[in-house]
């Protein structure tokens, strides 16, 4: 109904007003369950809620930007570690997703026997609820009773204390995360590749282009919008992907694999009995949100990602 665009506002309102009625429930839900809590979190980050040491948890005060100043001075090493870890976690994971997804999709996109069987098996990890499989993986990485060390032992390799060293803890996290996500990326890329017109490749073959240069000259440019889209979504999702870190390493050893979201949760609800540091939790939430928003705005501004949502 794009032809209505030229008509006057009052005409459009008279005809289109029911839309507001239909949007009312969702708007209310979003205002009360998203917008208000976000504003409330920002407010808590400017108080000494849980960190004031005033005795009672419920007496807290507005302290301006003191928490932010703290995060940039005394607490700077923690803040820096959280920023580095969050970016390393998200960017590293997405790089692996894209590389492995593209590689497998290229292989799967050929005429090859057993394609359907391969595809179905590769999709299985993605169909399992992530919370459940992450919990299982957390047990699999265990030192004494984990099956991964069990398998290593059976081929004569000594047990690795995966979660007690920073490098192996990251390795465990990335391997688990790849397992969780590579099916989705592979299938999305296969679907996009199948939409590339065959005759482009035929013409390239006739001109003598090798498979390698066909991939870089035809496949990759064609996939670019998809790569940007799933890459951004994957980054935003992984940046705040709570369960792998929370369930497998709990941010350890120390805080060497801790990201904003898990540190925030730990500060607020981490140890039973200890005073919950709600203001610190809120502070990390707000920093996290600002980073996410900035990245999204820049990417949407530099690309045409939203065209499908706004047309």
């Amino acid at each position: 109904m794009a032809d209505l665009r030229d008509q006057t506002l009052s005409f459009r309102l008279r005809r289109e007003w029911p839309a507001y009625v239909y949007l009312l429930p969702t708007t209310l839900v979003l205002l009360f369950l998203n917008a208000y809590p976000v504003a409330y979190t920002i407010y808590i980050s400017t108080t000494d809620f849980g960190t004031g040491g005033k005795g009672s948890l419920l007496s807290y005060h507005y302290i301006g930007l003191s928490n932010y100043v703290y995060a940039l001075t005394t607490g700077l090493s923690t803040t820096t570690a959280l920023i580095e870890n969050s970016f390393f976690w998200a960017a590293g994971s997405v790089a692996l997703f894209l590389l492995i997804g593209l590689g497998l999709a290229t292989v799967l996109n050929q005429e090859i026997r057993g394609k359907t069987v391969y595809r179905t098996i590769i999709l299985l990890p993605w169909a399992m609820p992530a919370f459940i499989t992450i919990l299982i993986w957390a047990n699999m990485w265990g030192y004494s009773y984990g099956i991964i060390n069990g398998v290593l032992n059976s081929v004569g390799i000594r047990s690795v204390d995966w979660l007690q060293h920073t490098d192996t803890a990251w390795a465990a996290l990335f391997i688990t995360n790849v397992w969780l996500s590579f099916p989705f990326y592979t299938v999305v890329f296969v679907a996009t590749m199948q939409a590339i017109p065959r005759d482009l490749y035929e013409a390239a073959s006739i001109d003598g282009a090798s498979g390698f240069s066909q991939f870089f000259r035809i496949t990759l440019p064609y996939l670019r919008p998809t790569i940007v889209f799933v890459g951004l979504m994957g980054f935003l999702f992984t940046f705040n992907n709570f369960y792998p870190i929370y369930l497998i390493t709990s941010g350890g050893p120390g805080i060497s694999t801790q990201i904003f979201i898990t540190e925030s949760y730990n500060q607020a609800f981490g140890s039973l009995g200890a005073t919950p540091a709600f203001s610190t939790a809120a502070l990390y939430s707000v920093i996290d949100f600002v980073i996410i928003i900035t990245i999204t705005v820049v990417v949407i501004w530099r690309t045409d990602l939203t065209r499908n949502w706004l047309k």
Partner: protein
Amino acid sequence: MRARRGRKWVRLGKRIASHVVLIVACAFALFPIYFIVITSFSTLPVASITAQVLIPKMSQLSLASYHAILYSQSPSFVSLLGNSVIFAGSAALIGLLLAAFTGFALSKFNFPGRRTFVYFILLISLFPSFVLILPFYLEFAKLGLIDSYLGLIIPYSAGAVVFSGILVKNYMDSIPDDIEEAALVDGLSRTQAFFRVLLPLCYPVLGLAAFLAFVGPYTDYALAHVFLTSSDKWTLALGLYNVANTDTGQSNYGLVTAFAIVMSIPIVAFYMAFQRYIIGGLTLGAVRG
């Protein structure tokens, strides 16, 4: 002649390499699943979890873990399942209604402020949901909604609303306006046309929206862990976490894996049955083909 034979060998080598890559990928994908399945039927004691658990003898297989999960857990499996269905089912129902209304308004109306609204909901949805647990907790504690059914159903309902709304919008975009206009010519109001003509055409995407709204709460641990203090309201996710993390540092793998399988089956079945559709939906129409 020789060149042609050479090319044939290259092609064969390529094909073998492709199969090797795919077999490795499949082995990686299957290993944890195989481990879960085989361990759930195993009678081996926990301390002897070595690679031998992966290649069991027939005599070492039993249904004991399943029996234990279903009949001798506290809180009982039935209670956990019932609570999960109450929480996730309510969230799915409310989420479905919200998504249907939102999708309809965004797809079939050209109201002033439409663009602003889409940007607003996208911005809102970027705020990481785990971060909302803190304000929810503080607010709901004031309202006395902690450890109540309502207190958890409310935040769960909002979980998938933006995503599902856009999902429904994209689907409705593909339904020609003529269908709605024909209904209007037949004398139906716009609301009647929506409920009687448009919605029935959207059953597939509405099913998907309801499913996605169900899966989130069904597998939520972070929010439920904070909100539910009494174990008679615990969900399957809390029950599974509890079985998997015993204080002794060694979990009973048989129980954990049997629990994981029983809890996963409905979700896996749905995903595998509707995989094409779900993948299309999850990429929000950004991937064509």
